[in-house]
């Protein structure tokens, strides 16, 4: 079936089989491999994308279900040559080790800070609870979220 949606700010029309998951569409058909598949059942958050601005697991959505909607993946975050403040914060605080979970964390952080520009520690925990990282121990990720909040404030 043919679906039309906004992908990273661009109108996209693509033909998809009924049973195709969004993550498969992104990775296999559109070569957007920044979105990762970890567990395939909604526990690890590596496949997180923003659907109409809200974080969802792209392994638990059919491609057909995003018809008419807006999808943002990690590839759509940077504006021209400049990285998004959240991306900069993750780099500057060294909140990345193997990097497999990072796309998901950055998008979860982006959505958290859009809703709540100044989150408390507990709110950060709740905001990124759907993302697992097996390398960092999360301390650096906390730093990244707080740094990102500051970068965003500086920009505004």
């Amino acid at each position: 079936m043919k679906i039309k949606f906004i992908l990273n700010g661009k109108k996209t029309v693509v033909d998809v089989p009924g049973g195709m998951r969004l993550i498969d569409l992104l990775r296999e058909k559109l070569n957007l491999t920044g979105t990762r598949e970890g567990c395939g059942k909604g526990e690890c958050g590596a496949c997180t994308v923003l659907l109409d601005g809200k974080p969802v697991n792209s392994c638990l959505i059919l491609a057909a279900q995003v018809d008419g909607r807006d999808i943002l993946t990690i590839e759509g975050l940077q504006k021209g040559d400049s990285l998004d403040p959240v991306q900069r914060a993750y780099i500057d605080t060294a909140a990345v080790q193997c990097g497999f979970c990072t796309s998901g964390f950055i998008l979860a952080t982006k959505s958290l800070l859009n809703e709540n520009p100044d989150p408390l520690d507990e709110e950060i925990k709740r905001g990124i609870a759907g993302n697992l990282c097996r390398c960092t121990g999360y301390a650096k990720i906390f730093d990244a979220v707080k740094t990102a909040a500051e970068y965003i404030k500086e920009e505004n």
Partner: protein
Amino acid sequence: MIPEIEYIKETELDLALQHLASDKKVIPFAGGTDVLIELRKSKNPFDRKALLDVKGLGLNDIYIHSDTVIIGAASTHTEVEDNEIIKSKLPVLTKASSLIGSKQIRNRGTIGGNIINASPCADTVPALLLYDAQIVIRSLSEDRTVPLSEFITSPYETVLQKDELVTEIRAFPVAEDYGWGYYKLGRRGAVNISRMTVAALMKVDGEGKINEIRVSAGSVFPITSRISDVEKMLVGEKPKAEIFRRAGEIAAEKMIETSGRRWSTPYKESVVKELIVRVLNEAYSRCKNDDLS
């Protein structure tokens, strides 16, 4: 990838119901957080040929109609958690919805799906049982309303027929002087499949005695249910540690009577006792009674 399956989306309820009534094997789904996982587990576990997306049917209104809270079955856990009517009228449900999975899951999974999937550890069910929830079911031939307490017939099984769709959940709020408690026990703090869930609503009268009490438990019995033996024992008693402990013992006895002694019993027996005490204490601490000093 998911095996070849047709995807159908309708924006009108009658058209959706026509698909369900047809000879074709059609499975309705909303968030997909359970259904898509099941579909991938084996080649075609549902032995169905098509998926019917009910997200376009507008079944996500939440409103009050003559003292009944009506919740569209396809309301996401996020929509339920953030809803002001539910916060003030059904606080136990707000709490239950807020503890489900992760933000990603709550943004997709729905209250109807949580009930229909009928897992013994479904988080919204113990909360909804406290509010005597009813499940509104529609099909082309008949509309019917079934109490939640009769809707789930065994783990992962419900009374829902192939041609039927759950469209809304009705819940009946209690007065503001009721206190409530909800405890979800899990192995970690988030993205957590409940090990056990206990919920309670309590009202204390002018003499400081328990006037009305409702207690429900998930993952304690094969079907999540109210524990009427505990409720009966507590009515008329003064809320105190000894009575709450007795309530926990009755719940544990009832659990063993229903499910037998299983490998998990030594753990669950002591845990259910403790959780009942905690939830009753929590509910009592929220009871508002001006007559009590």
